[in-house]
C-alpha cells in the first residue's frame, strides 16, 4: 500500500524535531530513511506508525495509506507492523505466543480460529526459519533470532505497511549482513511496502529502492541509491554517503594554492574548497603539469578489494584517504613513510550559495 505524507512536522516542546515534510512512498517499495542521530528520521517513522503525533497546528497535515486517511487513526487501528531496534519481544511468552499475539488480541469477530492461528504462526516461523524454536523464550535466542521473531510477529497481522526502526542496529556486523540480505529477499518475495530507519549509509544504499537522506529535521534528498551516490544534491549528502577528502585554498589565475601544493582549476579567483572521494585520488611518483600535491603515506590497510592508504602533508588539515588497486599497490611498492604525489581524477564542489548548482569536474 502506498504512503503519502503531506506537510508533516513535529516539535517536542520548543525544539523542532522535524520540519514540515512531504513524502510519497509507492506500493511495494522498500525505502530507507538515512541520517545522523538527531536528524528526525526516527521521529518521522514513528509518526507514520502513529506512535507519535505530528504537530496539530497544521491543518493541511495528512497521512494517507493508499486512499485511507490515517492522520487521526490510533496506532492499533493503522494496520502497521513495527519492528523495534531492541526487538521489544514479550519476555514472558514463548516464541510461538509472541508471533501469535497480534492474532489472539483481534476482536472476536475478526479473530481466526485457533487452528488457523496455529497454522499461520507456523507458516511465519518457517519463513523466518525458526519453527524448531517455537517453544523457547526470547532470552534463549540470539539477537539475530530475536529480531527474526520480532519480524514474524509484525507480519502475522498482515499489515499494510512494515516499519523498521534501526532493525539491525543492535546486531554484530556478520549477522547484520545476513539479515539485510534476508530482509531484501523477503521483501521481493512478499512485496509489502516498507520503510526502515538507519544511520548506516552502506545499509541504506544496499537495501533500499529509494533512500531519503535527512539531516537536522529536513529531507535533503530522495533518490535511488545510484543517483544519490553519483549526483548528490548538496554537500551534506555527499559527505554523509562516504569518505571525503577536502582540499581548501585560494584560487588565482586558474591555480588553486595551498601551502606548497597547487592544482590547476578552471575557477574564478577566490577561496575554494574541493571535495574528493578516496577512489578519485590517483598516486604517482612524480608531479604533473596540472597538479603538484606532495603527500606522505602514514597508514596502509590492505584488506578488501582495494588497498586503503592514508596520506598526510603539511598543507592538509586532515589526512586524506585514497584507495588503490592491489596491482598499483605492488607496482608503486607503497609502504609507510613513502613520499608521493596525489593526482585528483575528479573533484566536486558545493558552492555556499544555495542558488549555484553543485559541480563535478574531471581533471584531464
Amino acid at each position, binding site marked *: 500500500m502506498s504512503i503519502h505524507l503531506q506537510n508533516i512536522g513535529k516539535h517536542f516542546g520548543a525544539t523542532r524535531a522535524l520540519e514540515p515534510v512531504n513524502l510519497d512512498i509507492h506500493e511495494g517499495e522498500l525505502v530507507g530513511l538515512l541520517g545522523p542521530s538527531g536528524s528526525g528520521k526516527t521521529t518521522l517513522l514513528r509518526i507514520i506508525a502513529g*506512535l507519535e503525533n505530528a504537530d496539530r497546528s497544521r491543518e493541511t497535515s495528512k497521512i494517507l495509506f493508499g486512499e485511507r486517511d490515517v492522520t487521526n487513526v490510533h496506532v*492499533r487501528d493503522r494496520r502497521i507492523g513495527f519492528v523495534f531496534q531492541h526487538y*521489544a519481544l*514479550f519476555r514472558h511468552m514463548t516464541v510461538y505466543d509472541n508471533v501469535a499475539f*497480534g492474532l489472539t*488480541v483481534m476482536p472476536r469477530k475478526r479473530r481466526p480460529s485457533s487452528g488457523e492461528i496455529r497454522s499461520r504462526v507456523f507458516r511465519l516461523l518457517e519463513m523466518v526459519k525458526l519453527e524448531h524454536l517455537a517453544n523457547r523464550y526470547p532470552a534463549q535466542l540470539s539477537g539475530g533470532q530475536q529480531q527474526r521473531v520480532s519480524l514474524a*510477529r509484525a507480519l502475522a497481522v498482515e499489515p499494510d505497511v512494515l516499519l523498521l526502526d534501526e532493525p539491525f542496529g543492535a546486531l554484530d556486523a556478520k549477522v547484520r549482513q545476513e539479515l539485510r540480505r534476508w530482509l531484501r529477499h523477503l521483501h521481493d518475495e512478499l512485496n509489502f511496502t516498507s520503510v526502515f530507519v538507519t544511520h548506516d549509509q552502506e545499509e541504506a544504499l544496499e537495501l533500499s529502492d529509494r533512500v531519503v537522506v535527512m539531516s537536522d529535521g529536513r529531507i535533503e534528498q530522495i533518490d535511488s541509491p545510484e543517483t544519490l551516490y553519483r549526483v548528490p544534491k548538496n554537500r551534506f549528502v555527499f559527505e554523509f554517503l562516504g569518505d571525503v577528502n577536502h582540499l581548501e585554498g585560494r584560487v588565482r589565475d586558474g591555480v588553486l594554492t595551498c601551502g606548497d601544493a597547487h592544482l590547476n582549476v578552471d575557477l574564478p579567483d577566490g577561496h575554494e574548497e574541493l571535495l574528493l572521494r578516496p577512489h578519485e585520488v590517483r598516486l604517482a611518483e612524480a608531479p604533473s603539469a596540472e597538479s603538484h600535491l606532495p603527500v606522505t603515506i602514514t597508514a596502509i590497510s590492505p584488506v578488501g578489494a582495494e588497498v586503503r592508504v592514508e596520506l598526510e602533508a603539511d598543507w592538509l588539515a586532515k589526512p586524506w584517504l585514497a584507495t588503490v588497486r592491489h596491482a598499483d599497490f605492488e607496482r608503486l611498492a607503497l609502504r609507510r613513510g613513502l613520499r608521493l604525489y596525489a593526482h585528483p581524477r575528479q573533484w566536486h564542489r558545493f558552492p555556499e550559495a544555495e542558488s549555484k548548482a553543485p559541480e563535478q569536474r574531471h581533471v584531464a
Partner: protein
Amino acid sequence: MSLAELSTRRIAAGQKRVLPGFGLSMGISVLFISLVLLLPMTGLFGQLAKLSLAEYWAIVTEGRVVASYMVTIGAAAVAAMVNAIFGLLLAWVLVRYEFPGKRLLDALMDLPFALPTAVAGITLATLYASSGWMGGILEPLGFKVAYTWVGIALAMAFTSIPFVVRTVQPVLEDMPNEVDEAAMSLGARDGVAFRRVILPHLWPAIVTGTGLAFVRSLGEFGAIIFIAGNTPYETEITALMIFVKLQEYDYAGASAIASVVLFVSLTLLLAINIWQGRFIRRLHGGKG
C-alpha cells in the same frame, strides 16, 4: 571446617578469588547476623524450651488467641489486597506520568516508614473515632471504622503501602516503553495490553511487595492498637496477645504465640522467594 581452612583449600586448588576481602566481609556479616538476628531468636527458642509440647499446644490454641489469629490474618489479607491494587496504581502514576509535585508524592510514599507507628495509630484513631473528622462523617452513614476490624485493616494498609510501591516501582521503570508500544502496534486494546503484556512483567514484584506488606501487617502493633478497640474475641490482634502475656510476665507463653507468627511469616516469605526464582529463571531463559 573453619572459614580459614576453607579458603586455604580453595587456594590450594588454584581457585584463588580475584575479588579481595572475602574473609573479612563474610566474617563481619556472619557476626552481625548472629548478634542482631540469630541471638534474639535463640532467646525465643530458649523460652520455648521451658514449655512441654502439651503446654505449648494449649497456649497457641486457646480460644481468645485463635480468634486473634483470625482477626489478624483476615485484616492483613484485606490490607494486602487493597495495597496490591493501590500500590500498583501509585507506582504506575509515579513511573509513567510527568506532573507537578511528582517528587513530593514520591517522597510521601516513605512517610509510613518514617513516622513512628504509634503516632500513626493515634492519628488514625482520632480521625476515625465518632468524634473525629472522618468518623463524624462515616458513622451517621452506618460505616464504623474505629474499634472494628476495618480500622485494623486501615492501620495495616497505612503502614505497609510502601512495600508494594517500592518493589513495583523499579521493575516498572526498567520495563521499556517499547514493549507496550509493540503490543499496541499489534492491535491490542489498552486493557488487553495491560493484562497480557505489562501485568505479567510486574507480577513477581507485585507478589513480593504484597507478601512483604502482608507479613509486616501480621506483626504490626503500634499503629493498630489505638484504633482496634481491643475487644476480646472480636478486635484483638495477635501482637496484642503477645503483649498481654508479656505484661503478665508469662515470657514462655508470649514466645509460644510469637513462634506461630514467626513460622507463618517465614513460610510465606520462603514460598514467595522460591516461586519468584522460578519465574525469573524463565525470563532469563532458564539459566540465571
